[in-house]
């Protein structure tokens, strides 16, 4: 966002322009609204505003809605426009959706990350739709010479008292000349006709016919392909390279060093790949310290020694342990994880004297434009950034390393460049979910947690713990500590950062505590949550009631109370991304190994915007969580990643994917995150079911390393 925007923020804006044949583009700037005043009330119209969305209403009554955030498979290209369409009151069949480019004048927070797209844009998108609707009504009122209060709208039409109607398309031009109302009415949740329905992915047709264009599909006039060879191990420096052979390959045009990597420029992807293989490189000595076995031991020493770095320290945990009836201490370990987005990293850049054009799959376009401006010493105004369809994000594409690389290469050779990572380049390039180790210690008094001490240590992790989440506020003596081990291995946010493993550790630990307390694991959690409501220790920064809600829902839907012979269940509940999730995994044992019969998921994410999209997210994240807990790991030997491709890196396959049943708490609360929060609890629910079946606990991932084979 530019500073100058602030000065304009006192005014309300409506920029209009006639597009095409009589179409009208309405472009708004506004401030995000307060979330608590939306429900069925009048909210202030779009004034004091700073960001904007695009609605085009064409003369034929079709509507184009620009989707502002990157689409990485989380379905925002469908669900965000649905919110606008709901308040605009148009038939979804009238609507087509376009991906917006990065535009900080019109939009705010064009980011795919933290499961925040819907949560953050909910009030803004609703206002956008409602304001345009109000303008259309006002235009009709003017035309009919009646008061706007007498008019209503219905799926793309303004309707008068005696049933006369005008299409939005016919009113669009006049609407643009109306004064923006000070206040607009938002619908009551009970009146929603689109929100909450199952709406298919707006890109489905393009995807199934192969016409959807991902970043990697970018092809431009005069474009060359680039591949980069990076160091085999973290921390190694390029000493020299020999490109003689590579340059003999027809189509390989240039080879040069750039930022401790070797760039190969070629006329096609394949020649760039071949060129890379033909280059001989010499790198500095590998670093023995960057070794998974060494690091694992160091992390263990760190959590055992404890740091001074307490994030939370309430009561007195040591006293608490002394007084407790029982004390349990457990350690949990997680390895590095690559993201392995199905579409390998790639980006297009065209740097000329006049401008810089960037295009491709990125979750954080605004940050990258800023970074490229700094890197190339160009003004941001000269840089455009288009967002392509994205073949998976999972956090990997929050990091724009490949955007900068593409820009650097194009800047050097002054040609349009498509940078492409091979799968091997992608998998070994780092930006991994950091390896992390947790040590939990808890004391039980009268069957309740009376002291709780968690110490985490992660590689390049600024914080390994999550203050403010359960069981904080339900335990009198409570401490969280976090330490970081410095390393050359690059850090990356990975779907549900921190939570993705912390939830596993915490929720399997709690399962053990419940067992020691001789309580049903759901009951044990419910009692603790009740404590946080009735007599909390300190401030409660989550909503225990909503957590209770999902636990009860999952118990009901999984028939938790009814035992079935040969069927083993495990439960887990976790709060992340402002969303509450409880899951039950049911397994049977086949030939001594687990077969997942069903996963039942209960989620409270407030209002569900798109039922089908929500199911897909919840289901996908659960399977993702179980798949990575089972197989995911990237071991390093002397800094060198030990997997390079899917031949040795095991990904969960179709035949192993469990059935996932999703249930959502009926809610009128504003929507919260959904792309991530069902992932964290999944592995623990599975491990707890494994314990129910085998009496063996799992303390580290991947489970396959401990002999677990999915049936």
């Amino acid at each position: 966002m530019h500073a100058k925007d602030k000065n304009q923020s006192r005014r309300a804006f409506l920029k209009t322009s006639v597009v095409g044949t009589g179409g009208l583009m309405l472009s708004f700037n506004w401030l995000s609204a307060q979330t608590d005043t939306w429900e069925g009330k009048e909210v202030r119209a779009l004034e004091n505003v700073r960001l904007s969305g695009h609605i085009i209403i064409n003369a034929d009554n079709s509507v184009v809605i620009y989707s502002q955030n990157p689409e990485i498979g989380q379905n925002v290209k469908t669900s965000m426009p649905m919110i606008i369409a709901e308040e605009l009151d148009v038939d979804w069949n009238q609507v087509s959706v376009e991906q917006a480019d990065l535009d900080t004048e019109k939009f705010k927070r064009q980011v795919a990350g933290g499961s925040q797209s819907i949560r953050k844009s909910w009030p803004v998108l609703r206002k956008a739709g409602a304001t345009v609707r109000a303008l259309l009504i006002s235009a009709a009122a003017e035309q009919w010479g009646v008061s706007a209060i007498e008019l209503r709208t219905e799926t793309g039409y303004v309707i008068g008292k005696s049933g006369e109607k005008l299409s939005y398309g016919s009113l669009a031009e006049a609407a643009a000349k109306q004064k923006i109302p000070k206040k607009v009415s938002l619908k009551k949740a009970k009146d929603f006709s689109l929100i909450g329905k199952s709406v298919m992915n707006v890109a489905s047709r393009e995807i199934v016919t192969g016409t959807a264009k991902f970043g990697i599909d970018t092809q431009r006039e005069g474009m060359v392909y680039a591949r980069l060879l990076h160091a085999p191990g973290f921390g190694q420096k390029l000493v020299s390279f020999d490109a003689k052979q590579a340059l003999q390959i027809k189509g390989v045009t240039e080879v040069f060093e750039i930022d401790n990597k070797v760039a190969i420029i070629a006329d096609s992807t394949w020649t760039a790949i071949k060129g890379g293989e033909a280059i001989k490189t010499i790198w500095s000595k590998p670093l023995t310290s960057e070794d998974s076995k060494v690091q694992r031991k160091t992390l263990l020493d760190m959590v055992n020694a404890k740091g001074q770095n307490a994030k939370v320290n309430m009561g007195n945990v040591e006293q608490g342990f002394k007084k407790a009836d029982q004390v349990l201490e457990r350690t949990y370990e997680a390895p590095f994880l690559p993201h392995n987005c199905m579409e390998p990293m790639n980006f297009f850049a065209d740097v000329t004297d006049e401008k810089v054009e960037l295009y491709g799959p990125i979750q954080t376009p605004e940050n990258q434009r800023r970074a490229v401006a700094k890197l190339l010493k160009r003004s941001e105004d000269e840089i455009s950034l288009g967002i392509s369809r994205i073949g998976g994000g999972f956090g990997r594409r929050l990091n724009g390393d490949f955007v900068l690389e593409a820009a650097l290469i194009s800047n050097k050779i002054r040609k349009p460049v498509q940078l492409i990572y091979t799968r091997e380049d992608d998998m070994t390039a780092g930006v991994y979910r950091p390896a992390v180790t947790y040590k939990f210690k808890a004391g039980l008094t009268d069957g309740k947690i009376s002291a709780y001490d968690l110490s985490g240590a992660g590689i390049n992790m600024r914080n390994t713990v999550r203050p403010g989440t359960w069981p904080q506020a339900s335990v009198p003596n409570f401490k969280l500590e976090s330490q970081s081990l410095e390393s050359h291995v690059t850090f990356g946010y990975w779907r549900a950062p921190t939570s993705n493993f912390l939830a596993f550790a915490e929720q399997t630990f709690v399962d053990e505590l419940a067992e020691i307390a001789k309580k049903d694991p759901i009951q044990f959690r419910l009692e603790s949550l009740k404590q946080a409501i009735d007599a909390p220790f300190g401030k409660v920064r989550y909503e225990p009631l909503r957590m209770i809600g999902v636990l009860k829902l999952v118990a009901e839907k999984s028939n938790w109370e009814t035992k079935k012979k040969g069927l083993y269940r495990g439960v887990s509940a976790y709060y992340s991304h402002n969303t509450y999730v409880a899951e039950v995994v049911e397994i049977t044992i086949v030939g001594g190994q687990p077969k997942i019969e069903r996963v039942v998921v209960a989620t409270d994410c407030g209002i569900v915007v798109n039922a089908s999209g929500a199911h897909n997210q919840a289901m996908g994240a659960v399977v993702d969580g179980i798949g990575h807990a089972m197989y995911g790991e990237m071991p390093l030997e002397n800094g060198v990643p030990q997997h390079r491709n899917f031949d040795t890196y095991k990904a969960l396959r179709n035949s192993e994917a469990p059935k996932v049943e999703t249930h959502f708490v009926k809610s009128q609360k504003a929507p919260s995150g959904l792309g991530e929060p069902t992932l964290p609890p999944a592995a623990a629910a599975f491990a707890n079911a494994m314990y129910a079946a085998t009496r063996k606990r799992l303390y580290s991932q991947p489970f396959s390393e401990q002999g677990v084979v999915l049936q």
Partner: protein
Amino acid sequence: MDLQVNGKKYTIDIDPQTPILWVLRDHLKLVGTKYGCGIGQCGACTIHFNGTAVRSCSIPVAAAANVAITTIEGLSEKGDHPVQKAWVDLDVPQCGYCQAGQIMTASALLSQNNKPTEEEIKLGMSGNICRCSTYTKINKAVKQASENL
């Protein structure tokens, strides 16, 4: 050399060792077929070779002479192959990147076995990785398509 893709003839001058995947994508501009691993492990690049599903990343273009190649762009004229219809109907895709390969595998599977059991579907589809984990939806869609063949 001559190639026949989606019923069209193409003549190209290219290193015969180039994998068909890159010929399709970079030279014929048929980018619906995707690159995922390049070593036959993920299925993103699946196309039909005389109706049989193959991994285009692992077959040199030299092997494609006199073969009728079908890619996702040519699976049906109007995008209305029962598999494509089921995919849209059941809202299968998430990021969508793997789905061309999934659909090409599924359609070849159904042309060989038009009433596959649940187990046969799972097994038949297990060579295709979906990083977004759309697997159970995929299986439902294959089943639905088999009923509408």
